[in-house]
């Protein structure tokens, strides 16, 4: 098989693409290719990965313009004409080469009150939450998010509005809004409303399109828009 030509981003915010030739193998993933470069061609290449089996989301990068998990992206599917371009995730500061700085992503998660606030103690009965209740179904539809940042990198509103909390943070907030055990609903709805919150979403659906876990932050954000209506109309949620 002809070798693969891989263009890899080197540097920080300023930098350039560097080309490497990687031997093709059967069932090769983009992560395999990047790993080959670092181990055999240039040990100074920085990149992140962990599980390499599509569970942790650490290997998310921009492949030929799209944010993806590199361990779950087969080279055969994306290397048109034997070429690949790999860059760090978009919309985040670059630490070095393929490593993006995820701090603002998680800061926004915290700002949208993406943390569960318990209302019961160990002395109380177990909460009996019906799995088929409408609220629990809504929560379950979004609860598998592992915070990989792909949706954040895909979102143009994140790109154009630096304050925008982003799809993942808002999706998590929605799952908690629907959690009947949670005690911070009012503060959370305040946190996710407004120009930097759910109201800035334009339903482009790039998040839903690219989510490797097939979640739909668009759906969750639409739910937040409805949930914050009372707030917007002058009342309290």
């Amino acid at each position, binding site marked *: 098989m002809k070798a693969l030509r891989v263009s890899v981003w080197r540097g920080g915010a300023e930098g350039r693409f560097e080309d490497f030739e990687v031997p093709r193998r059967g069932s090769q993933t983009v992560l395999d290719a990047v790993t080959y470069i670092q181990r055999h061609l240039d040990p100074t290449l920085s990149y992140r990965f962990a599980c390499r089996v599509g569970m942790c989301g650490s290997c998310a990068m921009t492949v*030929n*313009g*799209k*944010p993806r998990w590199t361990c779950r992206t087969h080279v055969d599917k994306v290397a048109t004409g034997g070429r690949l371009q790999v860059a760090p995730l*978009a919309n985040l500061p670059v630490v070095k080469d393929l490593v993006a700085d995820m701090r603002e992503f998680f800061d926004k998660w915290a700002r949208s009150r993406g943390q569960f606030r318990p209302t019961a103690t160990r002395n109380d009965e177990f909460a009996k939450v019906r799995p088929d209740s409408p609220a629990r179904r809504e929560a379950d539809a979004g609860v598998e998010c592992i915070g990989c940042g792909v949706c954040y990198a*895909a979102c*143009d509103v994140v790109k154009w509005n630096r304050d925008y909390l982003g799809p993942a943070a808002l999706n998590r907030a929605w799952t908690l809004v629907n959690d009947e055990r949670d005690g911070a609903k009012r503060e959370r709805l305040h946190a996710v409303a407004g120009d930097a919150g759910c109201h800035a979403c*334009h*339903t*482009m*659906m*790039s998040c*839903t*399109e*690219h989510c490797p876990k097939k979640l*739909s932050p*668009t*759906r969750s954000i*639409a*739910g937040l*828009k*409805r949930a914050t209506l009372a707030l917007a109309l002058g009342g309290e949620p």
Partner: protein
Amino acid sequence: MIRPARSHPGWWAFAVHRVSGVALALFLPAHFLALGTAIQGEAKLETFLRWSEQPLVKVAEWILVTLLAAHLAGGLRLLAIELLPWREWHKTLAALAAGFAVAVGLAFALVR
């Protein structure tokens, strides 16, 4: 060059909605000023309408009508997604909106 991450229906729906919205917002004052010529009498408005019979103006008019239909259809899509409880078919609304806009554009082109 459109980046590859944007080549899906939802993004196109957004792009059409935004471009049509800005175009209509810019057009509106001109539209009001043109109609306002009637303040000076029917003849003045008639003069303007005769001017607008030019082929280039008629094409621009047709584009605006189609953009209006597109913006309306896209807007109804957003209202459905945002205000109604989520359904899977909401994802296909972009296609329906496009179809509606094309239909209106055709209808207007045929009668003009």
